């Protein structure tokens, strides 16, 4: 059932949603205007055209997970890839330290939000899936260090002591993104939370180029290069190998249990918004160590 992506007003037809959004935008309501600016078009269109655009935007051609993948690519890997992803094609020490310092906060929040999925579901395969994910991220598995530990070691290999890394508070953009994900965790049902969080793992999914992404999350030659410490390669390789499976499996579960696809779509877009802001925070932190990094965001 069509839904307003800004305030979640429901109607039986997209035309009604378009009329509602058009009116809200005419009244300069920031939330509605911003949603259209960021997702649909910055140029005002009439209600009929808006209706068509909304219907096309939310139309699920194959399955929900395919729609999520398509939107993720458009937002982060499309015509104008996110500056952090561009920076990861040739990462400096500053880029990687920015990554380490901000991402520790992301990962801590990650497992907290996943625990909310476990709290809210009775589906055993989902509970097992999330527990395994938390384990890999926070405790490690089969004697291998956790993703969190590999991240800290990457920072240490770049010359920053562990205590110093752990002493940083998150930048405001990171905190804002974390607040968004925590709000989603508290207010949404478990399928929405799963979709909102695990779709973010698509960022390192190496199969994205098959679906139209212009580049990979990072330049893969790093993994065999002698220009980077082993710990940098260990961390990047872990995500490279894990996230494809993680995102793919989670989105299959989302497809299987989705009862309200439109609501899931809206929640996923909120999560993407937060993620885009958070990725910029990594660069912003990186600027503290590499002033030239500002050129990446210009």
């Amino acid at each position, binding site marked *: 059932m069509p839904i307003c992506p800004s305030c979640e007003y429901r109607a039986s037809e997209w035309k009604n949603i378009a009329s509602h959004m058009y009116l809200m*935008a*005419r*009244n*300069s*309501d*920031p939330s509605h*205007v*911003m949603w*259209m*600016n*960021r997702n649909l078009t*910055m*140029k*005002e269109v009439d209600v009929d055209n808006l209706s068509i655009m909304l219907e096309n935007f939310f139309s699920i051609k194959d399955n929900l997970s395919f729609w999520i993948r398509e939107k993720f690519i458009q937002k982060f890997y499309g015509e104008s890839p*996110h*500056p952090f992803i561009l920076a990861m094609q040739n990462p400096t020490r500053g880029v990687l330290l920015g990554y380490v310092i901000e991402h520790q906060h992301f990962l801590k929040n990650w497992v907290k939000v996943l625990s909310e999925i476990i709290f809210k579901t009775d589906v055993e395969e989902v509970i097992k899936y999330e527990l395994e994910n938390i384990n890999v991220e926070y405790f490690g598995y089969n004697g291998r260090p956790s993703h969190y530990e590999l991240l800290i070691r990457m920072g240490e290999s770049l010359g920053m002591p562990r205590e110093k890394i752990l002493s940083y508070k998150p930048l*405001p*953009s990171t905190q*804002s993104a974390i607040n968004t994900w925590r709000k989603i965790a508290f207010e949404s049902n478990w399928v929405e939370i799963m979709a909102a969080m695990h779709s973010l793992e698509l960022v390192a999914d190496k199969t994205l180029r098959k679906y139209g992404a212009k580049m990979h999350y990072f330049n893969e030659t790093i993994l065999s290069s002698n220009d980077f410490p082993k710990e940098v390669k260990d961390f990047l390789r872990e995500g490279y190998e894990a996230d494809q499976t993680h995102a793919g499996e989670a989105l299959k579960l989302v497809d299987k249990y989705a009862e309200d696809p439109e609501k899931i779509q809206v929640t996923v877009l909120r999560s993407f918004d937060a993620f*885009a*802001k958070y990725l*910029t925070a990594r660069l*912003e932190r990186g*600027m503290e160590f590499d002033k030239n990094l*500002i050129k990446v*965001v*210009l």
Partner: protein
Amino acid sequence: MKIQVNGSKAGDKENGCALCGATWGDYYEEIDGEKLFFCCDVCATEFKNMIEEIKRRTGWKKIDELSIEGNYYKGRNCVAKTEGREYKFYVKFGDDAEIETFKEIE
């Protein structure tokens, strides 16, 4: 004030919001004696905060030209001009339209 957003003229309903370039909305604010168009009050507040910060840092009384490149996600790379002088900076706004990051560019 002559305003350009991502390469296009901005600041009136026809051309778009003085900060983001969008033509949605119908919000106006008088800034430096000039009525400027914004898509919403958040963009207007961000713009005003930015103008005040430029004036505070440069000591300028007014800004003749302002060029803004970028967006909400990655922040904005700007060039302000007045009486033959030029000031370049990067700005990013927070959730409450406040300036979250402001960096002068050499």
